[in-house]
Every structure is written in C-alpha cells, then in structure tokens.
C-alpha cells in the first residue's frame, strides 16, 4: 500500500561544521562523532553504539573544539553551526593514547586465551593509537580467576571489562530483558546480573556482540577458534520472518559460530537466541545423509539414482497428486517446486502447511496486508506514531522485530498498542496491552472500529486504544500469524480490512505488515506456493486444494502421490491423528527434508536436502525484503542442494540459484528490479506485483458461523477451563530448533504457561509439574506463571516432539480446550 500514502514531509534544520578543516553540512543535533564519520574521519570509541543512548564514558572519542579549553566527548556532543572540530591533532592523539593507557591499567593482558583476541576493539585501538609503553606498575584489578558461566550461552570475565556499558544498555534498551546492570562503583563496576544471576536473560547474546573486549563471551564458541581461523559468510537467519543478517563462521568445515555485524541488515548488531545459538542443527548427527526408499515396509538407504528413478516411476500426475512445501525454503527452491508441481505433476494442489490456515484465510491475509502491493521497509513502518500489534506474541515469535519495535516505541511521541492474550516482554513498552480470549480477535477489531465510527466512553481498554487510533495520523498495524490459525480468520482479516478502510477514510496513513513465523512465508506465496495463486500472486484458472483439503481428500483416498518439501505435516497439522491417518492413505509419498521427521518416517522415499547454510538463494522476509543466502559449507554426507534435487526430478535445466532467480524476475513482477548479485546486507524491497487488491471477497465465505469450523470452542466449559494457544517460544522455532543442542539446553522441555489468576485459583505454583489434558491426549510438563496474561488461556510451545501439542487439536474444532491438573 506504499503508494497509497503520502510521504511525511520532514523539514530538518541543517548545521555546517568544520571537521579537521573540512566543511560538512549535517542535520542539526547530529553528534560530532556521526558528523565526523560522515566527513570521512574515524573516531575511535568503545561506548558509543548508534542505537543506544549516549553515555560518553570511555573518553576515547575526545575531540578538540576550537574555543573550548577541554577536549569534548564527540559521542555525546551535538554539533553547533560553525563549530571547528579537530579529531586528529596531537592533543587528541595524546589524549587517546592516555585513555588507552588508563584502560590497560586494569585490563588483563590475557589476549592469548581470550576468545575476542584478534577481533578485539581494544586490541585494535591500542595497536593503532595506543601508547607503546605503560607507566603503571601497580597490581591490576582482579575480580576472579576463572571465567564465570552466566548462562548456557554466556561466559563472563569481569577482569576484562572496560565499563563501556554497551551490554547493559543493549540489554535494557533494545532487548528489553534488563538482565544486566552495573554492580559496584568506580573501577570496580561489574556489568552483570544481580548476584551474577541472569533470571530474565533472553540468552540472545547481544551483550557478547557489542562487548568491545572479551568480557562477554559465547560459551558454545568458547575456545573453538580464533577469528583468523574462521571463514565467514554472510547469510540470512532461517528461524523467523524478520530476516536477520547473520554471519556464519566455519573452521575446517565446521560451523563454530553465528554472529551479527554492526550496521548490517535490519537487525544491525542484534540477534535472538535461536539466531545466534541455533546453528548446531546444521551439522547435527541426526541429519539424513542418504536417500531412502521404502522396501517391504521399511526405509532402506539407497543411491540417488535409485531414489530418483523410483520417484519418476511411481509419482503420478494430475489432480490426484499434491505438493506441500515448507516456508523455510528459498524463493528459488519454492519457485522450482511450484513449477514441478504445476508443470510436471500437472496439479494446482500446492500449499504451504501453514499449520492451521485454509486457502481462504491465507489469501485474506495476503489481501489484508497488501502483500501484492510490494514491501514496506520496517523502518518506514516504525516511523508511524501509532503501532498496533495483533495476533502475535512478537517477543517470542519475532524477537528481533520486538527489538526494533521497542527501540521505536522508546520515542515518547509514539504509541504502541499490543493486542494478545499472553503477556509478553514488549508490554513494558506499550501504552495499552489489550487482553482477549483467543478467537475473539474479531471482536477487538470490531470494538475499535465501532468506537472510531460511533464514539463513546473510553472506559474499556479497547476504547482507550481506539481513542489512540483516533488521535494518530500515521498508523502501522502488525498482523500476527496467529490470526491465520483461527477458525474465523477470514472474519478477523475482513474486519481488519474494514478497519483499515475506515481509518483511511478519516485521512490517516495506514501501513500493514504481517508478522510471520517462517522465514520465507511471504516469499513462498509470491512464488506461487498457494492453491489459488501462480507466481506473482496471479489467480489460477482452476483452484487447487489447500493443505487441509488435501488431507481430507487423502482420507477419502483421492490423493495418490504427495511430494512434501521439508514440512512436518504430522507434527504441525492440527489434529495429528487425522494427519497421520490421511497421509497413510496416500500410496506414494516423497519427503525431502534434512531430518527424519514424523512425516518422513511414513514416507515412501526420503531425499536428504540441505540446510540453510548449505545453499545459495534468497529469502523474502515479512517486510518484503529479499535477502541473499550464501552457501557456507557443502551439503553434509550424500545430501544434496534442494534446488538440484528438484531440478533433477522435474528435469529443469537450472544450474544455480542465480539462474532460477533470473526466471523469477521474469515471472514475478515484484522481483524484476532486484539484482541477485548485488543483494547486500540490506537486501532489496520487492515492488508491487501489479495489482493492489486480490478482490477475492466474492468467493470467500464471509461471516462467522458460515465457516464450517464453527465457534463452539469459545464457549465456556467447566471441565476444560483453558483455551490452549500454541506457538513458538523465544528459544525455539518450529520443530527444527529442537535439533540445535544449545537451544535445547536453553529450553529442554515444553511448559504450560497460565495467568497468575488461574494459578492462584487452582493452587499451582510456578515450576510445578502438571498434566495438561484434552482431546484424549495428556502430557506432563512444568507450569509457568505469566503475570498479566489473559485469564483462562494456556500456552504451550509447539516445538517439541516430546509433547506433540497438535494432539490437543481436533479437526474442525478450532481452538482446543484443555484442563491442567496438578501432578500428585
């Protein structure tokens, strides 16, 4: 909808300053340091970090300003018109050298054993501008002998700290975890959690990333390599649709670390725990490394030729075939996959297993978020003065988006409204947190719309939020993927579309961004992985079946062959029993995946594919930003690049992802201006596909009740008091992350989260072992209490094979009800 909006005109007051004799005109209020960088002069600094609040503690950035006797810290001093600044003269240089000498007075010289050695900012600055000799002969400050292991991923060495406090600030201001603080005074400050504990830690490792020295270190990477050993490749994180740029470092073919880079990608220097520490699945021992074919009811390893010939022989074509893909695959692979399904298998039965959504809901989502109209950079979206999030526990689902929103919302001129049953970390930044029962999203939207249209007393939270809507002029809505899973999702999305229209009528700028939980969900739709749309979201002539319909048909015996690209239907589809039964009914199932998932176990042919670190390609994140994936290592064992596999099955002649991308550029309008080679850290935003609205309303069942799923589960039920919502946890994403050892250390087993009130009523305390029962399935897990969550709602992460949450679901019943019983 980018073109529907008028660009907000901002008038900047400019200031002209002289830096080292070079004149430069910058926005008034720019820091001297930024101005100098723009002018091309590098000023060393430890404590300055662009998105963090200014501190000015390290004194490395001291500059001389003409007319001022003392040197000034450039990272906290804004420019004034006519300033004459010197950053390279002798006074400044000697001040820098002295500062470094001071820092080294207490910094231990254990660089040989420090993981940071080789990429340490202190080391670099000392080499560049440090004193060559020190006048200090006193004992160095020493807190402890052994490094402190603060968490399964973070190691701390207080001795090395230089008090830049970047860690404290990033934890507080960006991550919002507030796990770190300065303990002690003066030179004895230790930046750590209370009593060296990290209760609220997100384990995101951003403190490690920003630490200029080796005070914070990554435990999984500890003593694995030195920076110069690593071959580092920039690629994209595969865990959620935020699309963080990551840099994978390998040593001798082994992935040893993932890091972010300062000022690269939308995530800049931040990552979440799963992005930073979730790389162990790449070279997991459980990877499938050889193709397998079912012989006499058992899967047996075989050669590629054999597997492919079996597929060619057995796979049918026409309406009785189907293809289901995962949104974790690259645009190129998905494009070739839809080509395979549509052109070779000759069917439109192609879908993502978006777990709970039918094709009408997903197309309504495409419509509501105007995915066809091109991408909206998140930074543009966050300029709005009202940010509204609905249907996503964004702190858990898209942690880095959470950081971005938090940073934006710290601006007091902005309002953040979050509507979700669960409490989340971002609530602390929000003006209003709307709680509702799952399934009643439509009512929330309706309430807001009603208030805006009809007015009324702003007594309830909804009305208060609506009042904010009324006052705002630029509004950004984030629509979570949970809406897709609702039985009445079409209603909700229609309601949102109506709200948008309403707001627009009142002269407001509306931007609408989806919050997806799979890295390439948006790209997959654009590549035509949808029963209704061809690549470029062009309507197909003959509608295909969506995932649910396919399974229905399979149950009836109407599907003969199914090709599953990396999706675990049995584990993810609501109603696991039904999914298993339906799949077993299909005569010939091909699963292409990296792990032996529940679905793969019942397949007839398994093809070992590649993980994200083993292939080239592009992902399109939720904003519509196309980013490059780069191959880091060769596919493990006998597994192959997925693109190669798909091409050899379909007989396509694409040799590389680049060639496929060229084809995509021709077929998908939004990608036509993107150059595959020139995709850098910032990616490229897709443009519109040539139409703004899909106008499917005529064919979509519109109102609740007409949906075949019904709303009966919303009704109160004394026996099963809790409505169960499922989703990703902060440390997990789908079923993939449980293959990553470190993430399993962070959260090894599922838990059930209920509100404080519910806990008090049932007399269960935090951490107690309980049994969750429902739909004839029960599972034991720990209880967690979330203060401020909606009463009568329970949350279980869906990421564990040990507790298959989709067993609680029953086909066609929408949100399940469960009861929670204390374990005797």
């Amino acid at each position, binding site marked *: 909808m980018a073109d529907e909006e008028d660009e907000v005109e901002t008038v900047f007051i400019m200031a002209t300053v002289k830096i080292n004799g070079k004149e430069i005109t910058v926005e008034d209020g720019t820091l001297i340091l930024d101005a100098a960088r723009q002018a091309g002069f590098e000023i060393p600094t430890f404590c300055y970090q662009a998105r963090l609040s200014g501190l000015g503690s390290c004194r490395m950035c001291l500059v001389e300003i003409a007319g001022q006797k003392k040197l000034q810290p450039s990272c906290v001093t804004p420019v004034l018109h006519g300033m004459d600044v010197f950053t390279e003269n002798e006074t400044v240089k000697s001040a820098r050298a002295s500062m470094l000498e001071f820092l080294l007075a207490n910094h231990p010289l*254990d*660089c*040989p*054993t420090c993981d940071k*050695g080789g990429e340490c900012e202190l080391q670099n600055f000392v080499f560049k501008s440090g004193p060559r000799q020190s006048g200090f002969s006193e004992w160095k400050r020493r807190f402890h002998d*052994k*490094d402190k292991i603060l968490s399964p991923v973070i190691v701390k060495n207080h001795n090395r700290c230089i008090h830049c406090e970047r860690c404290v600030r990033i934890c507080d201001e960006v991550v919002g975890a507030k796990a770190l603080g300065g303990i002690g005074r003066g030179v004895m400050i230790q930046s750590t959690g209370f009593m060296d504990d990290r209760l609220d830690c997100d384990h995101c490792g951003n403190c490690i990333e920003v630490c200029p020295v080796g005070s914070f270190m990554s435990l999984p990477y*500890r*003593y*694995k*390599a*030195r920076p*110069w*050993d690593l071959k580092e490749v920039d690629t994209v994180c595969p865990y959620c649709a935020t699309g963080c740029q990551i840099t994978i470092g390998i040593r001798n073919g082994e992935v040893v670390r993932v890091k972010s880079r300062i000022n690269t990608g939308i995530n800049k220097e931040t990552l979440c725990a799963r992005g930073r520490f979730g790389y162990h699945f790449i070279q997991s021992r459980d990877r499938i490394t050889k193709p397998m074919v079912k012989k006499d009811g058992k899967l047996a390893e075989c050669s590629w030729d054999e597997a492919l010939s079996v597929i060619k022989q057995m796979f049918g074509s026409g309406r009785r075939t189907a293809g289901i893909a995962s949104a974790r695959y690259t645009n190129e692979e998905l494009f070739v996959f839809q080509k395979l399904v549509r052109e070779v298998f000759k069917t439109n039965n192609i879908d993502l297993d978006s777990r709970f959504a039918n094709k009408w809901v997903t197309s309504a989502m495409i419509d509501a978020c105007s995915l066809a109209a091109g991408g909206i950079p998140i930074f543009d979206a966050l300029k709005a003065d009202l940010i509204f999030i609905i249907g996503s526990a964004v702190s858990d689902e898209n942690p880095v988006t959470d950081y971005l929103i938090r940073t934006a919302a710290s601006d007091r001129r902005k309002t953040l409204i979050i509507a979700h049953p669960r409490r989340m970390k971002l609530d602390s930044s929000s003006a209003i947190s709307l709680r509702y029962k799952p399934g009643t999203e439509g009512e929330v939207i309706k309430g807001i719309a009603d208030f805006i249209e009809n007015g009324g007393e702003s007594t309830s939270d909804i009305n208060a939020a609506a009042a904010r809507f009324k006052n705002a002029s630029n509004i950004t809505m984030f629509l979570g993927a949970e809406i897709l899973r609702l039985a009445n999702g079409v209603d909700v999305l229609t309601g949102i579309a109506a709200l948008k229209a309403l707001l627009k009528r009142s002269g407001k700028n509306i931007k609408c961004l989806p919050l997806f939980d799979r890295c390439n969900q948006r790209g997959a739709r654009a590549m035509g992985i949808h029963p209704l749309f061809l690549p470029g979201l062009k309507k197909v002539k003959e509608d295909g079946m969506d995932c649910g319909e396919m399974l229905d048909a399979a149950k009836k015996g109407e599907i003969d062959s199914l090709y599953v690209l990396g999706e675990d239907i049995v584990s993810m589809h609501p109603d696991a029993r039904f999914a298993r039964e339906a799949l077993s009914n299909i005569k010939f199932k091909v699963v292409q995946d990296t792990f032996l998932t529940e679905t793969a176990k019942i397949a007839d042919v398994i093809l070992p594919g590649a993980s994200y670190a083993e292939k080239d390609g592009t992902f399109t994140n939720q904003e519509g930003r196309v980013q490059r994936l780069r191959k880091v290592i060769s596919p493990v064992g006998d597994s192959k690049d997925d693109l190669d596999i798909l091409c050899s099955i379909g007989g396509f002649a694409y040799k590389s992802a680049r060639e496929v991308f060229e084809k995509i550029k021709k077929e998908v309008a939004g990608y036509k201006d993107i150059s595959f080679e020139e995709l850098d850290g910032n990616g490229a935003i897709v443009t519109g596909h040539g139409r703004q609205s899909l106008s499917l309303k005529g064919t979509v069942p519109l109102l609740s009740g007409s949906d075949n799923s019904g709303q009966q589960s919303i009704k109160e039920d004394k026996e099963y008091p809790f409505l169960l919502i499922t989703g990703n946890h902060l440390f997990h994403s789908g079923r993939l992350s449980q293959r990553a050892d470190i993430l399993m250390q962070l959260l090894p087993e599922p838990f059930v989260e209920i509100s404080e009130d519910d806990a008090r009523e049932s007399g269960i305390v935090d951490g107690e072992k309980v049994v969750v029962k429902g739909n004839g399935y029960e599972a034991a897990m720990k209880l967690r209490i979330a203060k401020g969550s909606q009463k009568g709602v329970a949350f279980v992460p869906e990421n564990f094979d040990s507790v298959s949450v989709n067993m609680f679901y029953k086909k066609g019943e929408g949100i399940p009800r469960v009861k929670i019983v204390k374990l005797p």
Partner: protein
Amino acid sequence: MSANSGIVDILKKVFFIDLIKGLSLTFKYNVSKTITIRYPDEEKWIPYQRFRGLHTLNRDSQGRELCVACELCSKACPTKCITVIPMEDNTGIGITDRVAQVYEINLVRCMFCGLCEDACPTTAVRMGREYELACFSLDCAKADKHRLLAPIEIPAEFEGGYVVKAKLERNKEGIRVRPDLTKKKRWW
C-alpha cells in the same frame, strides 16, 4: 725486481715448488686427525641451545602445560604447518582453562625458522635439539601434542656444541641414536 722474480718464478716452475707445497699440505691432512663425526655408529653431535630442531611443548614447574592454544604460532608460521585446536579444560592440565585439544606440526612443511617460538606468549613452544626426524612411514611427519610434550632426551640446561658418545639402536619404530651425555668432547 721483476727480473729477479722472473727467475724465481722459473725456478719455482722447474722444481715444482707449488705442486710440492700442495702435495705436502694434503699429505699433512692425510696423516692428521680426521674431523668426521662417526655418526650414527659411535658419536653424535649435540647442537647448541640456540639450535632449531624439533619443537617441544613445555610445562611449567608444576607440570602443567604452558600452551594456552592461542594459535599465535600457527598464525606466525610462514608455511602454515601448525594446526592448533583449542578446547576448554577445567582439570588443570594447563596453566589456564584453555588448552590445546590438537596441537599438530606438519614437519614436512616446517622449515624450522623458529617464528612460532618467537610468537609464543607463554614460552610453551621451543625449538628443541632433536634433529633425527627421518622415519619409515609418513606418520612421523606429523608431530602431535603427545609427541611434542614427551620429555626430551637432551635436557635444556645441557650446553651443547659437543660431540658425545652415542649408541645406534634399531627397533621396529625406526633407528635412534641414543647419546651418552657424560662423555662429551669439543668437535674441533
């Protein structure tokens, strides 16, 4: 003078003075003592302490490994023949909790320049005086941590620059020349 020296020259030629000089010199050599060291049968040359032979990994006085696996040696190595893979160890075998999991020198590529020694911050790597590195299989071309940490035959304090009595030993692993450091003599 020129006439004089001319005559002398002719006389020298006639009486083969130069040839006789040469012959007498070689005869002197013939009867003098040889400078050959009877290596490996009876004697062995123990080089000076500054010699750059097979590397050793050293321990501190308490027997802990000095190597902290900082990889500076492998960084400094011009032939890139040193492989170091660090690991964490809390059992106290090293002076820090960072010790080498793998410390391997590819002796085929090593040119014994000693830059690793210079780069080592803990004086863990020292070039020793072991120079008998030939063997029957390529296995020994790689010196692993175990081999480098093994106690060396010639103590570091031994001054060197001597020829000592030695014994040639043959066994399955190969040939070794075992020196007897008590019986030493200067080479010349």
